[in-house]
C-alpha cells in the first residue's frame, strides 16, 4: 500500500485549553493497575475563561512550555468535558506533579495518562455508557425504570431463595473495585443471603491466589515500594512491571537500577522491554517454558545450599524448628487449608535440616534436570543463584527481594508459590528494607468483606476433613445456579475454558423455554420464576458498558453503574496505601453506584441495614470489617469521628499520599505501616492487640501460629500428571497470555480511546520466527489458535481417597471432558518470545485466550492455571494491519 493512502487513526488537536488559576482541583488516583498513581483533576466551566501559559495564569502554577520531567503536562488525551449538576465543564486529569508517594514527580503509564478519556462525554466514544436499567423482552433490552427492574430482580431472588435455597442464588463480582461497593455486595451475598455460591472476577472460587506463601507465613503484599529501589538484586517471576505496573518501573525499579545498580532477574518466556533493559544493566533472563518454574526454584536453592549462601541467622531465628513444627504450633489448626494440605505429609517438613535433606534428594533440583524441564541453559541457574545469594567480597549479605505475578502462580499455583516462597525464606526475604517478598499485583485492592465465606454450606469435599469453596463455574455448568448477580466482570471470557462455559450460560438462559414476551411486570416475574423452576437461570448484570455476551446476550436485566470520578470512593494499592478517589462529575443518565444498586435490591428483598445515605456511610460501616487485615483502615473512621468529621473527608485531607495500612492508633494519631513482617519495628503503639484496631502478628513477625516461617516441600510428582497432559504435542505450541502495557483488562475503556485503539485494533499473538516460518506466518497475518483438547472438570466431585481429585484421578473417574476452544489473532513475529511458546493478550473480548485454557483448577487451591495452554496455530489470511500505516505496529518491543 502506498503512503498516499495513509492517515493516522488518532488525530489529536494541536492545542489544549489550560485550567485557569481558579479552576477547582480534586485529588484521586488512577483507576487501573495496582500501583494506583496519584492524579489531580482540574475542573472549570466549558466556556472558559481558560488559563494562560504564565504560571500565574493556570491552575498548575507552571510556565508553559514545560521542561522535561516537569510532570503535569496536559496533552490532548488529558482533557475532556463532563457535566456536573447540569453544567458543562472542561476537565483535565493529570498524574499528580506534586505526588509525594507512589508516582513521585508525576510519572504515569499510558493507561492512567489517558484516563481523562474514561470520563463519560457524549461527544466521545464513551457515549455508549449504560444510562438506564433495561429488561430483556422478546430478546431486546428495553429501558425501564429502576423500580421496575429491581422489583423483578427482587421477586425472582426471593423465589429462588425460598424454593431452591441460598446456594442457587449466586454472585460473581469484582474484588478490584472500591471498598464501598465490595462491602455492599458481600453484605448482601454473604451476610443477608449467606450464599456459598460466590466468586470474585478472577477466580472460580473465593480463594487465595498465592497459597504457598500463606502456608509458609508470608503476607502477599508485604513490601513498601521503596524496597524495589533499595534491593541489590530482585527476582521477578512471571511479570514485568514495565508492561503492567508501570510506575513501579518508572520510579522505583529504575531508581534501583540507575542509582544503586540493582540487578534484575526476570523469569518469563518473553523478552519484554523490561527484560531487555535489565539484561543491558547486568540483569539476567530465565526464559522458561510456562509452568516449569518449580524445578528452577529448587535448582537455584540447591546451588545456594551447596555453597552455604543461605541466610543462616535468619533461618535460625525465623523458621519453625522440629519441635515447633511437630507439636503443631507451626502448622495451623484443624479444618484450615493448612490442615488439609498437610494431612497426607506431602508438603510439611520438620524444619530447615529436614527440608534441606528433602530438597537435595529431589531429581528436579539438579540444575541440569531443572534446566531441561524449563528449556533453559543450566548455567543461568547457577548464575541466578550467585546473583541472588553469593555474599559480597567483604562477606556482607546482599539484599534480595522477590516479587511475582500471574506467570508464576497461574501456571502452577501451589508448587510455584511454595517453592519461590522457600527461596525467599533461605534468602532472608521479608520485613527488612530492600529484602521484601511480595506480589506486585494486577488490579487495585478494594476488596472488603462484610461476612466470612460460609464454608460449611459448600458441598465440595476433598479427601481428609476439608471442604473447598464452591467452584462457581462448575456450579453454573452443573445447573445449580438459578439466579446470578453479575457485577463488573465479563465472567465468561475471564474464566478458563470459556467456550464451554458460554455453552452453559446459553443453555440455562437463552435456550430455556421460558422467555419474557410481555412488559407486564407480573408477567415478567412469572415467566422468570417458571424459568428458574424448570432448571434455567436468570442473570442480572451491573455494568458501565454493555458487555458481550454476559450483558448483551444472557442478562435478563442490565443495571447501569456509576464508576470512577462519579462518586467518592476509597481503595488501596499494592503497597497497602489507602486513598480517596474524589467525585468530580455526574454519572451519565440514571446510572447509580454499585453500592446503591445493591442497597435498593436488598431493601426490595426485605433485608435491613441498607439505608445508607451516601458512599461515606457505606465506607464508615465497612471500616471495622478491615480490622486485623493488611489493609486495616478502621483508624480513619475512629479518628474522623473523634474529630467530628466524615471518614471520607478525613482521608481526603491526605490527598494522593493517603495512608499506608495497616493503620494503628496512638492516642489521637494514626500510625502507618511501611512494610509487613517488620520485626525491627519499634513504633507499635502500646494499646494492646485488640480494640479499634487489631495488632495482627504480621506487623512484627510472620503469619503462622508461631510467627515463624514454614519451609515446605514442592514435590514435582504432584504436578507431573497435569503438566504432562498440558504439554504441547505434535505441531502444537505453548500459548501463554498476559497483560500488554498499552491495554487495561478487557479493554472496556481502551476500545473507546482512538489513541490506544490505533496501537491495538485487534488481538495479537507473539510467535518466534522459527515457529512462524514453519507455519508460513508473517507479521500481520491472521492466525487461528485452536485446541480440541481443552480439559474441563465436570460434575460434583466428592473425594474420599487420596489421589482421586488429582488430574489422573479425575480422568479415571470421568470428571474431565475435552472441549474445543479457539481464538483469532494478528501474528507478531518476534524473537522476543521463546521458541515453542506463543504469547497473547489475556482478555480480548472477541477472541478470548481463555477459551483454550484448561478449566481444571489446582486440586489443592482452586486456582485456574490460566497461563498454561497449548494449541495449534495456523495462518488463515492477511489482516489489513499488515500493510497499512494507520493501525498496529509490528516493531520489536525489546529494543533498548
Amino acid at each position: 500500500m502506498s503512503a498516499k493512502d495513509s492517515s493516522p487513526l488518532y488525530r489529536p488537536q494541536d492545542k489544549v485549553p489550560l485550567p485557569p488559576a481558579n479552576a477547582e482541583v480534586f485529588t484521586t488516583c488512577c483507576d487501573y493497575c495496582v500501583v494506583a498513581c496519584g492524579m489531580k483533576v482540574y475542573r472549570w466551566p466549558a466556556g472558559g475563561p481558560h488559563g494562560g501559559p504564565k504560571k500565574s495564569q493556570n491552575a498548575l502554577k507552571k510556565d508553559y512550555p514545560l521542561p522535561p520531567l516537569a510532570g503535569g503536562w496536559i496533552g490532548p488525551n488529558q482533557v475532556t468535558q463532563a457535566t456536573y449538576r447540569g453544567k458543562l465543564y472542561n476537565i483535565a486529569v493529570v498524574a499528580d506533579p506534586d505526588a509525594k508517594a507512589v508516582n513521585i514527580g508525576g510519572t504515569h503509564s499510558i493507561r492512567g495518562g489517558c484516563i481523562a478519556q474514561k470520563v463519560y462525554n457524549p461527544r466521545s466514544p464513551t457515549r455508549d455508557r449504560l444510562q438506564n436499567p433495561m429488561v430483556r423482552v422478546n430478546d431486546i433490552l428495553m429501558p425501564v425504570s429502576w423500580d421496575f427492574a429491581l422489583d423483578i430482580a427482587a421477586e425472582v431472588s426471593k423465589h429462588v431463595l425460598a424454593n431452591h435455597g441460598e446456594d442457587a442464588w449466586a454472585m460473581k463480582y469484582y474484588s478490584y473495585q472500591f471498598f464501598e461497593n465490595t462491602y455492599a455486595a458481600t453484605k448482601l451475598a454473604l451476610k443477608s443471603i449467606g450464599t456459598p455460591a460466590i466468586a470474585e472476577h478472577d477466580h472460580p472460587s473465593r480463594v487465595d491466589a498465592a497459597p504457598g506463601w500463606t502456608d509458609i507465613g508470608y503476607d502477599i503484599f508485604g513490601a513498601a515500594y521503596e524496597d524495589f529501589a533499595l534491593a541489590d538484586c530482585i527476582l521477578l517471576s512471571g511479570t514485568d512491571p514495565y508492561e503492567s505496573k508501570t510506575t513501579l518501573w518508572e520510579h522505583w525499579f529504575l531508581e534501583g537500577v540507575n542509582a544503586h545498580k540493582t540487578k534484575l532477574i526476570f523469569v518469563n518466556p518473553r523478552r519484554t522491554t523490561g527484560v531487555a533493559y535489565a539484561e543491558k544493566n547486568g540483569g539476567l533472563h530465565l526464559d522458561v517454558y510456562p509452568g516449569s518454574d518449580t524445578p528452577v526454584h529448587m535448582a537455584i536453592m540447591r546451588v545456594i545450599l551447596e555453597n552455604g549462601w543461605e541466610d543462616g541467622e535468619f533461618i535460625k531465628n525465623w523458621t519453625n524448628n522440629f519441635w515447633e513444627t511437630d507439636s503443631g504450633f507451626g502448622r495451623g489448626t484443624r479444618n484450615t487449608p493448612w490442615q488439609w494440605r498437610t494431612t497426607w505429609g506431602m508438603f510439611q517438613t520438620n524444619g530447615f535440616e529436614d527440608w534441606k535433606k528433602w530438597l537435595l534428594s529431589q531429581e528436579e533440583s539438579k540444575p541440569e534436570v531443572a534446566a531441561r524441564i524449563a528449556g533453559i541453559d543450566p548455567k543461568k541457574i547457577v548464575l541466578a543463584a550467585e546473583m541472588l545469594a553469593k555474599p559480597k567480597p567483604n562477606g556482607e549479605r546482599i539484599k534480595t527481594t522477590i516479587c511475582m505475578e500471574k506467570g508464576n502462580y497461574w501456571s502452577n499455583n501451589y508448587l510455584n508459590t511454595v517453592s519461590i516462597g522457600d527461596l525467599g525464606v533461605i534468602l532472608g526475604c521479608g520485613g527488612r528494607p530492600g529484602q521484601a517478598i511480595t506480589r506486585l499485583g494486577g488490579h487495585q485492592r478494594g476488596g472488603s468483606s462484610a461476612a466470612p465465606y460460609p464454608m460449611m454450606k459448600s458441598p465440595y469435599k476433598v479427601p481428609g476433613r476439608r471442604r473447598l469453596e464452591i467452584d462457581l463455574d462448575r456450579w453454573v455448568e452443573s445447573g445449580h445456579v438459578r439466579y446470578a448477580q453479575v457485577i463488573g466482570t465479563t465472567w465468561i471470557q475471564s474464566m478458563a475454558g470459556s467456550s464451554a462455559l458460554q455453552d452453559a450460560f446459553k443453555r440455562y438462559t437463552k435456550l430455556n423455554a421460558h422467555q419474557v414476551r410481555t412488559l407486564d411486570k407480573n408477567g415478567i416475574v412469572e415467566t422468570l420464576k417458571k424459568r428458574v423452576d424448570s432448571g434455567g437461570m436468570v442473570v442480572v448484570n451491573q455494568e458501565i458498558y454493555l458487555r458481550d455476551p454476559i450483558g448483551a446476550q444472557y442478562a435478563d436485566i442490565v443495571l447501569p453503574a456509576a464508576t470512577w470520578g462519579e462518586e467518592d470512593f476509597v481503595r488501596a494499592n499494592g503497597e497497602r496505601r489507602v486513598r480517596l478517589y474524589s467525585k468530580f462529575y455526574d454519572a451519565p443518565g440514571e446510572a447509580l453506584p454499585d453500592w446503591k444498586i445493591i442497597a435498593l435490591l436488598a431493601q426490595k428483598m426485605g433485608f435491613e441495614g441498607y439505608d445508607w445515605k451516601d458512599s461515606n456511610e457505606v465506607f464508615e460501616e465497612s471500616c471495622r470489617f478491615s480490622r486485623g487485615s493488611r489493609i486495616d483502615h478502621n483508624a480513619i473512621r475512629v479518628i474522623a469521628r473523634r474529630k467530628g468529621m466524615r471518614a471520607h473527608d478525613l482521608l481526603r485531607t491526605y490527598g494522593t499520599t493517603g495512608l499506608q495500612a495497616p493503620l494503628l492508633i496512638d492516642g489521637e494519631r494514626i500510625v502507618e505501616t511501611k512494610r509487613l513482617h517488620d520485626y525491627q519495628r519499634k513504633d507499635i503503639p502500646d494499646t494492646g492487640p485488640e480494640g479499634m484496631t487489631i495488632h495482627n502478628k504480621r506487623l512484627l513477625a510472620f503469619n503462622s501460629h508461631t510467627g515463624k516461617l514454614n519451609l515446605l516441600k514442592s514435590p514435582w510428582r504432584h504436578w507431573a500428571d497435569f503438566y504432562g497432559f498440558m504439554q504441547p504435542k505434535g505441531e502444537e505450541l505453548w500459548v501463554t497470555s498476559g497483560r500488554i502495557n498499552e491495554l487495561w483488562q478487557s479493554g472496556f475503556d481502551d476500545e473507546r480511546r482512538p489513541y490506544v485503539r490505533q496501537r491495538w485494533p485487534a488481538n495479537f499473538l507473539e510467535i518466534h520466527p522459527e515457529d512462524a516460518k514453519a507455519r508460513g506466518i508473517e507479521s500481520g497475518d491472521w492466525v487461528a489458535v485452536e485446541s480440541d483438547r481443552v480439559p474441563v472438570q465436570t460434575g460434583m466431585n466428592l473425594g474420599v481417597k487420596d489421589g482421586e481429585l488429582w488430574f489422573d484421578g479425575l480422568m479415571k473417574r470421568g470428571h474431565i471432558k475435552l472441549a474445543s476452544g479457539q481464538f483469532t489473532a494478528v501474528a507478531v513475529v518476534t524473537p522476543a518470545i521463546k521458541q515453542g511458546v506463543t504469547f497473547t493478550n489475556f482478555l480480548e473480548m472477541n477472541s478470548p485466550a481463555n477459551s483454550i485454557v484448561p478449566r481444571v483448577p489446582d486440586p489443592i487451591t482452586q486456582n485456574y492455571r490460566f497461563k498454561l495452554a497449548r494449541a495449534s496455530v495456523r495462518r488463515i489470511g492477511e489482516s489489513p494491519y499488515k500493510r497499512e500505516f494507520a493501525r498496529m505496529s509490528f516493531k520489536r518491543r525489546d529494543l533498548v
Partner: protein
Amino acid sequence: MNENESGPGGACMKRRAFLFRSGAAAVSTVVLPALPGMGGEALAAEMARYPRKKIGRLSVLKLDAPVIFNYPDSGPSSQSVLVKLGVPAGGGIGPGEDVVAFNSQCTHMGAPMAGNYQAGYQVLGPCAFHQTLFDLTRHGMVIAGHATESLPQVLLELKGDDIFAVGLIGLIYGRHDNLVSKA
C-alpha cells in the same frame, strides 16, 4: 545528536540562522501530497497557521541518518528529526515514500530523543527516561511504553529537491499550543 549543535532547550544560533535562511516563517496553504488520506484541503486549512520551513534536501539525505532541525520555531521542545527510513512510511515523501519527520521530544515526559534513532528498525527510542519506543513508519505510534500521544508528525512537502516542513499533527510535549513557545 550533537549536544553542541542543538538541545532540547532550543537551537543554537548557528542552526537557527540556517533554518531562517532556508525560508522559515512563510505561511503555507498548499495542498499536502504527503497525507491526502487526511482530506487534502481541509488539512491544509488546519495547517494554515503553521510556518513553512525548508528543512533539508532530498538528494543529500542518507539512509538511517537523521537530520536534526527545529520546528515550528526554535523554542523549547522544538527539536525534530528528518529521516530517510528506507521503507515506505505513513506520511512519507520522496520516490520511496520513506522520508518522514517528527518532533523528537518523548510525549511521555519530554526527554529529547533525537539521538535515539534505531538504524534499521525505523524506531525512535528507547526514551532515556522510561524506555518508550515509537514507530516512525506508522505516524509516530507508540510501540511500547507510556507516552499518551504519538510523536507529533511534521508534515512535509517536497518541491523539487527541497523538503519543507509545513505543519504538525499532534501536540508537542510540554506545550499547550504548538505555536506558543514561551510563557
